[in-house]
């Protein structure tokens, strides 16, 4: 069985790709960092574990990375779904990315086309991403969820006033650093709505109103698109479980519209698809 390092080296040597985006050793044991390997002899630095965060697909759209040439990217289940969603949203074209997929057992498989990615993604169990734990330290060394509810079931089970108190307390720590936005591969707008400032549409202050508005806007803009990789919450320096907002919306989109973003190459936006046979009449 050839290893990730062997595959990456072969791709670079053959000139199939010019850069391999993966994880390498970080500042301390257990911590990893994104690396951009451009020389075959440097492939030894790659860590063969794709469960780390942030979601590396974020880098595919960065101009500095694009300037390097055709990339290979090391992904797990979350990455496969991200790539399909990016393709559906016309952000990557067929063949533009060479995928090195690591399955749950660490076996590596090459997916050079979108069709190959779609075929492999179809084999993922329904909860492949949500249940995948990140090993040890993931992104930020200090990021950690606060005590209290840890899943949407627990938060949903709270009475309304306690749920509101939970979110007020969580969001009170938000410093508007936008690490969540930066670490999200599907937050790729070149000008985010919060940066539209003539006039300022979304309040930028890190106060009760501003943080609520930002976090709701961020979550809503990902409704029906989010693949639930968890990169946002992991990036949050103050440990806010903002992924819970996305997971709730994802489950709503699933139950009401059957939306499964990142499961196929079919373009089916829960929030912007029009069908003549829509059962609701407000749209006609």
């Amino acid at each position, binding site marked *: 069985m050839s290893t990730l390092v062997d595959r990456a080296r072969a791709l670079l040597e053959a000139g199939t790709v010019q850069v391999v985006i993966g994880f390498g050793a970080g500042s301390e044991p257990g911590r990893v960092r994104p690396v951009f390997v451009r020389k075959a002899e440097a492939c030894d630095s790659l860590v063969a574990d794709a469960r780390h965060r942030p979601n590396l697909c974020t880098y595919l759209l960065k101009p500095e990375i694009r300037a390097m040439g055709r990339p290979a990217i090391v992904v797990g289940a979350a990455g496969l779904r991200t790539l399909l969603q990016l393709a559906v949203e016309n952000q990557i074209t067929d063949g533009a990315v060479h995928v090195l997929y690591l399955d749950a057992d660490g076996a590596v498989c090459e997916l050079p086309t979108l069709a190959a990615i779609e075929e492999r993604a179809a084999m993922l169990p329904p909860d492949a991403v949500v249940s995948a734990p990140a090993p040890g330290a993931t992104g930020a060394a200090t990021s950690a969820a*606060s005590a209290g509810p840890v899943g949407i079931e627990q938060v949903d089970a709270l009475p309304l006033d306690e749920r509101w108190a939970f979110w007020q307390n969580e969001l009170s720590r938000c410093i508007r650093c936008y690490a969540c936005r930066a670490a999200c591969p599907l937050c790729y707008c070149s000008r985010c709505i919060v940066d539209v400032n003539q006039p300022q549409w979304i309040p930028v*202050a890190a106060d009760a109103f501003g943080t609520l508005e930002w976090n709701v806007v961020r979550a809503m803009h990902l409704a029906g698109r989010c693949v639930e990789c968890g990169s946002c919450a992991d990036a949050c320096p103050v440990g806010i479980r903002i992924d819970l907002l996305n997971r709730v919306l994802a489950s709503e989109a699933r139950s009401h519209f059957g939306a499964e973003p990142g499961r196929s190459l079919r373009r089916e936006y829960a929030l912007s698809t029009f069908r003549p046979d829509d059962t609701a009449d407000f749209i006609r």
Partner: protein
Amino acid sequence: MILSSAGLATLFERLTAAGHRIVAPTRDGDRVDFAEVTSPQAVAFDAVQTVRSAKAVLFPPVEPMLRYRTAGHDVQDEAIAPDARPTMLFGARPCDARSIATLKAVFTWDSPDPYVEPRLAATTIVTIACTKADAYCFCTSVGGGPADPQGSDILLTPIADDRWAADVRTDKGRALVAAAPGAFEPAGGHGAAAARPIADVPARFGLAALQQRLPGLFEQDALWIEQSLRCLGCGACAFVCPTCTCFDIQDERGRDGGVRLRCWDSCGFGQFTLHASGHNPRTRQSERWRQRVLHKFAYQPERLGVLGCVGCGRCSRSCPVDMNLAEHVQMLAEATA
């Protein structure tokens, strides 16, 4: 002098009764951060460092500056005074205390800042020397140290779990001792010799060599691009940093008036240098990263006579992609211009 845990309880009690605010590291789950407390029981003594710095005590993330009302062509504005209650910042680390010099240099540079200045005057800093450090600490590379007294009004050095040697260094420190009679005891038989060993923080780079090389590195594009490839351009580093002071002024306006706010900003954001004309002098992340490094290690020392970094390591602990300031700066110190 000596401060015992009983004395500490007295200190907290007296100050709270006198209407003082006490801000100290507290634990919430796995995260330790500064928060308002009223009793030493709430203080997390064992953490190497908090996630966020204590700068919000002096320079809050959102500062309401003035309120205004409009009626036709009439505008009436009303200044908003800062909340500058007497405050004890307790359990800060020597690097945190050291950062005050940078904040002071920025906010009193040409004219004293009417928001930060009164809070500086009302804040007394009680620091606890570090008996442990982690992989991200590099205070000794930037002129500080785990028992560095600079910036502290009182520096506490642990003698035992419930006793500290108290080095009362300033008038504010003495005023705090006087405000809580009985809290501090004379040293007597206990001396500094009994103090617990201070943390070992090996130097990562030579500051002199770095500062000599930096000006020549400005145009080394490839170097800055390589260092910042993984940087996502968020503001986490700037917002947890004790010395980052950039802000943006925003008007939140309703139909008949509004409020003017001063909000934290970060040079890592693409919009930070966007001009009204549409021109942006820093379009690439590498240019923003260069600005961050040079501002801290070249421009501020040159303009204000203070470094923009105290080596607390918060930026590197919080970075979602493990940008490591000490490592990057070490690379620069060793780079050939």
